[in-house]
């Protein structure tokens, strides 16, 4: 890499395009921070669209909390190293509210009760506790609570989603469920949720679907179907279908990757550049050396980079193993871009438990970057490594988002806290005087 390479200068470089990276870019843009965001988008397609805050604590007893703020208060007492303990409830709340406000303004409306968790059903027929959910999924909670007569619809060719399975599994709790399988208008053979969703955005298709559902409604007073109601125009498709049926409609999350994640991705991809984020999606950073003046220099696309980004501060939101922010060989876990110290179990023997669905979760899930209160990665002694490097999202240590059901909340709240810490750093530090 030569110094003559074209260089993009920015105040803040955000590495990562999952929920944490997207949220950080949003918060930075809204604060007028000069931001470049880099990363392969794709992982966010694996988002369920549900915004979990915290519902299980402690994981060993898997107690489920109906009030997430009470759960967080208890978690902060019990686990002082959990990222939520660094961030604090007020900041978590502020981050969640700002993100949800953005989604509402971006025509991807979300619903939540500020003081309590809500419940949805899954394709397995389990009941999942979450915090905020797309408006198109919201009607399930009341219907489930009241066991309202409900028609569940599925489609031949949509794998892993069987209305009959949900009905059978929930039978005891929700006896008034009926299941029907209807052809999907205009598509046959194997169905992909994304294709179905785009098809439903075509004028008239939602009405065709409504007409075929209506003849099976009978006494049903609510209708559930897989999450395929559009991508960019979900609100319109959803309202259209609901109006045509004359009863509330709710989407049920599907297997991953899901349309609900694609909606979030497209929403961020559409709005963030408009808000001033210089997005370099589908480009990857494999290393980012720090210069003598303290700034980071990051070649885009690795070895064959044609452009490099020069940033005064960095938020690392590169995810865990699936997102490739962490990598493990047979012996050790490494952070992939800065080679930061990774808190981890002593040997691979201790990474995973013998039982997959152990309530306690696997020790490896608590591995990650240890950070201080300003979300700066720290060394083994607890001292921050760089004053201008912050971390957000699932790469953080001492959390188990899978078992605790806190993935989105953790991503959003830590992004919010990291952006604030980054902003303070940038405001306090004149250009080219990083340290």
């Amino acid at each position, binding site marked *: 890499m030569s110094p003559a390479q074209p260089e993009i200068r920015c105040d803040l470089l955000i590495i990562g395009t999952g929920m944490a990276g997207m949220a950080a870019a949003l918060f930075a843009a809204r604060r007028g921070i000069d931001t470049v965001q880099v990363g392969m988008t794709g992982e966010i397609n694996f988002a369920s669209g549900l915004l979990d805050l915290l519902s299980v604590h402690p994981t060993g007893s898997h107690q*489920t909390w109906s009030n997430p703020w009470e759960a967080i208060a208890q978690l902060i007492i019990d686990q002082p190293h959990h990222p939520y303990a660094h961030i604090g409830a007020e900041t978590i709340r502020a981050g969640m509210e700002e993100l949800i406000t953005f989604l509402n303004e971006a025509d991807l409306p979300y619903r939540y009760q500020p003081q309590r968790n809500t419940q949805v059903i899954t394709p397995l027929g389990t*009941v999942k506790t979450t915090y905020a959910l797309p408006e198109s999924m919201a009607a399930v909670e009341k219907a489930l609570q009241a066991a309202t007569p409900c028609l569940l619809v599925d489609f031949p060719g949509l794998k892993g989603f069987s209305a009959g399975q949900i009905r*059978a599994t929930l039978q005891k709790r929700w006896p008034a469920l009926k299941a029907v399988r209807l052809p999907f208008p205009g598509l046959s053979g*194997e169905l992909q949720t994304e294709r179905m969703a785009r098809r439903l955005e075509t004028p008239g298709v939602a009405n065709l679907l409504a007409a075929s559902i209506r003849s099976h409604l009978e006494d049903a007073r609510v209708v559930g179907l897989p999450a395929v109601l559009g991508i960019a125009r979900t609100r319109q498709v959803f309202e259209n279908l609901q109006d045509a049926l004359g009863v509330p409609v709710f989407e049920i999350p599907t297997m991953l990757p899901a349309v609900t994640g694609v909606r979030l991705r497209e929403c961020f991809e559409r709005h963030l550049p408009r808000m001033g984020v210089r997005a370099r999606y589908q480009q990857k950073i494999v290393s980012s050396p720090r210069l003598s003046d303290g700034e980071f220099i990051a070649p885009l696309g690795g070895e064959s980079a044609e452009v490099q980004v020069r940033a005064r501060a960095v938020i690392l939101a590169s995810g865990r*193993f699936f997102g490739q922010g962490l990598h493990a060989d047979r012996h050790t876990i490494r952070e992939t871009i800065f080679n930061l110290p990774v808190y981890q179990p002593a040997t691979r023997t201790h990474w995973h438990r*013998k039982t997959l669905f152990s*309530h306690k979760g696997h020790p490896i899930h608590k591995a990650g970057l240890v950070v201080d209160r300003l979300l700066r990665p720290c060394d083994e002694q607890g001292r921050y490594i760089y004053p201008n490097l912050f971390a957000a999202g699932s790469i953080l240590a001492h959390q188990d988002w899978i*078992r605790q059901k806190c*993935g989105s909340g953790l991503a959003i709240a830590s992004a919010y806290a990291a952006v604030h810490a980054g902003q303070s750093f940038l405001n306090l530090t004149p250009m080219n005087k990083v340290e």
Partner: protein
Amino acid sequence: METQVLIIGGGVTGTGLARDLTLRGVACLLVEKQDINAGASGGNHGLLHSGARYIASDPAAAAECHRENLLLKQLAPHCIEDTGGLFVAVAGDDENYVADFPAKCAVCGIPARPLTPTEARQMEPALSKDIIAAYAVDDAAIDPFKLSLDNLAQARQNGCQLMRFSQVTGIATRSGRIQTVQVRNHLTGRATDIRADVVVNAAGAWAGQVAALAGIPIHIRYSKGSLLVTHHRIGGRVINRLRKATDGDILVPGGTVSILGTTSERCTSPDDIHPKVHEVDHIIDEGAAMIPALATIRYIRAYCGVRPLISSSDEGDDRSVSRGYALIDHATEDPGLENFITISGGKLTTFRLMAEKTADRVCRRLSHCSPCRTHCDPLPQTVDARWTEPGLAPSLWVQNNDSRDILLCECEMVPQSVVDQIVQSIRNQNGHPSLNAIGLRSRIGKGPCQGTFCSQRLAAYLYDLGALTHDQGLHELRQFLEKRWRGQQPLLWDISLAQAELLEAMHSGLFGLEQVDAPPPGDDRP
């Protein structure tokens, strides 16, 4: 229930015996506490030995292996991929063992053709540059699932009854005879008393436990062996290390993968065994000395089996204990039972011979004279077994080209129509087509995603077929994924670790499957 011969154990020996006896016109009933090949018959290399591995430790067993090897290649070719095999030594290996190898093979009647290291590397380019000696032998790959399912299928056609998930819980004896055997079905909880003229204990590693129920002590040493499945096939032939048998020295190709193993670790019980992290690392490090690529490739699964070694003492190396079989006629033992026979030990390669010798003994007890036919009658291929073959489901799916026949498992390309046939065949045997039963009989869940996607797709489809009701699917999904987990847990690094994270994100993070049931007690430690 009544039968002439009750066979306890549905591994290769028990199913082979069922076929042998029914071909002789003897009625039998086979009870298996889990599913077919749940023990060592399913937890091995799938290697049809040439015998050369045992020339030093057990020349008689080596010669036996070679005779059976040739016979099975003729009679059950559809279960065998005749790959041929190599024995190779690398720099630093015991040169005396290498020097003695050809003569010892000759003594046992086992052909071993010398190759130069260059020739060997031309035949198998994955071999290390450090090869110092090589011989070609008659090893082959054999599919133990197909073998057992085909043996059982013919036995059933000839009238053999089958009870799966049925564990022997008690054996009542009187005046030196077994009167009844009590069996309990795990799924239904129903207890059944079985009366038989002869009872054969073919319970493999569990033979000691079964015999103990009849008041007969059998001392069995449990030697666990762990194996690894590579993500893709490495090499065309079986590759053995040319040295005294030890860990990580055999690589067996089969279909689209290869299997590397094994270890030999003493364990105190045949139940609840897991391949462990240190075994995995040891196997890889040893294997990489022969084939360097083994250090860096992806592995998709680890599994293990328990070798039941019948011995009179606790001393010595488990590998030096005879791998020959033990046929114990308890009529001639003390304490004795005149209608009880135990067959244990042995190898996959010699399963047919073990069944023949056992059936001979059974027939003598029954005063039934009818000769063995399994050494001359070919083993018929049946539909029950064919879906375990990698590549078969995809090729038929492509041929049939029916857009409604959706792939439930994309890694291994298993369509709905294959599941339909398996469900039908299990129902024909009055069984319940559980996720695990279908997993056992097909390639579902065996590809790189290890069940992340296909598990729920299969569950949804089984609900659609009416094969699952109520919340049965939740429990079966958990069981299915836990079963895959056993094989993944010790080899989660690199891509496999990312895959496992996705699996958990979906099945635990989104579906909350861990909240469905309490975990089994005592099974929760890292």
